[in-house]
């Protein structure tokens, strides 16, 4: 059995690290580079960096602080962070082409996460897998619960319903050459109420590639639930890791104490 992974998911909006609530409200937590330094020191297994900027506004330069807040592009952030990171980094947000994939990988990302571009044309996954290897291709899926209990794939930052069933979509992504599925519940995002277990279970049972659960962690027990009830290979935490001291260490410890085989 592979060891279960604990992942920190960092959202960058307009160049600032944000907390996301239901894909619609954002609170500015601070500087991404400062965060990565601390997560590194605290022993998280991987970091997923997602650029969710809407306005391409990176104008937040200040000359009264001492941390690098002058990086104007997401690829620059990745390059900067990957130099000091001890753990694998996945970069995502705005990837439209093979050239974009190459840009992030050459900036130092170990994997890339692709969402909208795959929905529009799955070729990018097939071609990307051929070119760069499937191990570095993560397909990110934003899922919303429908009244009948199934889930639809959402696009445009969780706002637009594609009408596609999440389970069917995950299977297609796997066939096309995805190495992993990063599965986020739009409904649970920022709720602190736990993962959408039926959602992640349905995808885990349908595909053979690793699934990463995302969206809703408010308690370390939710991580255990994600793995034991949902069956995922990895659990991701966004907001919650920002709230307490040595958060990732405490989360890992909690998982170990509850019988999860972690690194």
């Amino acid at each position, binding site marked *: 059995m592979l060891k279960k992974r604990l992942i920190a998911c960092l959202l960058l909006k307009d160049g*600032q690290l944000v*907390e996301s609530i239901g894909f619609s*409200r954002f*609170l500015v937590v601070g500087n991404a580079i400062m*965060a990565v330094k601390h997560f590194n020191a605290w022993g998280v297994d991987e970091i997923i960096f997602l650029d969710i900027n809407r306005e391409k506004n990176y104008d937040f330069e200040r000359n*009264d602080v001492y941390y690098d807040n002058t990086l104007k592009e997401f690829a620059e952030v990745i390059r900067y962070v990957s130099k000091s990171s001890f753990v694998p980094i996945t970069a995502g947000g705005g990837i439209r082409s093979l050239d974009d994939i190459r840009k992030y990988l050459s900036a130092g990302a170990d994997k890339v996460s692709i969402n909208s571009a795959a929905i529009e044309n799955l070729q990018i996954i097939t071609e990307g897998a051929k070119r760069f290897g499937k191990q570095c291709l993560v397909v990110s899926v934003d899922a919303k619960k429908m009244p009948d209990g199934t889930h639809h794939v959402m696009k445009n930052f969780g706002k637009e319903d594609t009408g596609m069933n999440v389970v069917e979509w995950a299977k297609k992504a796997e066939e096309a050459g995805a190495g992993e599925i990063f599965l986020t519940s739009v409904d649970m995002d920022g709720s*602190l109420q736990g993962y959408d277990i039926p959602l992640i279970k349905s995808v885990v049972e349908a595909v053979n590639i690793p699934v990463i659960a995302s969206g809703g962690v408010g308690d370390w027990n939710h991580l255990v639930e994600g793995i034991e009830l949902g069956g995922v290979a990895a659990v991701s935490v966004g907001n919650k890791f920002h*709230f*307490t*001291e040595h958060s990732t260490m405490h989360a890992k410890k909690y998982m170990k104490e509850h019988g999860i085989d972690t690194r």
Partner: protein
Amino acid sequence: MKWCAKCLYPESSAVKLSFDEKGVCSGCSVNEQKAEIDWDKRAEMLKEIVETYRSKDGSNYDCIIPVSGGKDSHYQTYYMTKKLGLKPLLVTYHGNNYLEVGEENLKNMRNVFDVDHMIFSPSVEVLKKLNRICFKLMGDMNWHAHAGIFSTPVQVAVKFNIPLIIWGEHGRLDLGGQYSLNDLVEMTARDILEHCKRGYDWDSMTDEGLKKLGRPELSEGLTARDLFCYKYPDMRDIARVGVRGLYLGNYISWDANKQTKFVIDNYNFKISEQSFDRTYRKMSNLDDMHENGIHDYLKYIKFGYGRATDHASKDIRLGIMTREEGIEMVKKYDHVKPRDLYRWLEYVGMKEEEFDRVCDTFRDPKVWRKNDKGEWEKDNMWDDKK
């Protein structure tokens, strides 16, 4: 420039804001959560947490309360001693800028609360040097205070083996909505380093540190042994002791005006008889005459707003001031160059011309521009209504 539709914060706010579709800032939306929260449940949660930290055999203090002696300090200490029955150790970083009434309030605490109080007073020589260095380096002569206030109590926690620290409000959560009230955010070294200390740590202030920053001309001869009290404890020590800092503002419905009245009426807290130059409030920042003065004037120089905007925004959110009344306060106070400047210039031995010159290096070009006459100009929220 854009301003919040509800309070008075500009988008250039030092605490980064986000705005919703209606143009309301994250600070307002987080404050609106107060009405929806079950505060009785929160108070219960706090009670449960502190019980696990209460000294079992009575051989040690139950918690540390970092205090400046101000209104919040009084209320925190009231709450922990009278409501929860804890034995706290009060810890103060004394930055040598107290107003007389602030100093009286500080001394008042051990009289009215039956508590032990440790006051850490760093060398005045070191303070003067830090004032000068940090003013020129980051436009903030009060870096020493931010660093000291957030380091000394944590050092005491480690050295005395008292894991629980009770802070007041989380300032940036309240002002700008850095976190939600549902997050129950706690003290973290990262938050303190990045936001309280502006990313500068104690070791930036030595000659060697300044050389590394490329600013050797600011050197004042400081070495590591001058800066003990600005050193946040090592991560391993924090983990060994299990230091945990809670913000009381996450567990009680914080209302500074009501709480101030309460500690005035019951615990001999005194507000300033003299008004400040830069705000109408007389109950805040009595521990540091520059905090509401030139330190805050620098905020105006940098970001185009000051303490009157902060205070009026708080009061608008609490529903005790209208936005129009708030705007009048901003018009009246935000731009004022305060009188405490002259104490400071004498204290650190600087000329006003030099002060102004350094100030100008920190003006945010997104806020300020020079007009035809060569004067600094910026947009104001009342411009549209002309």
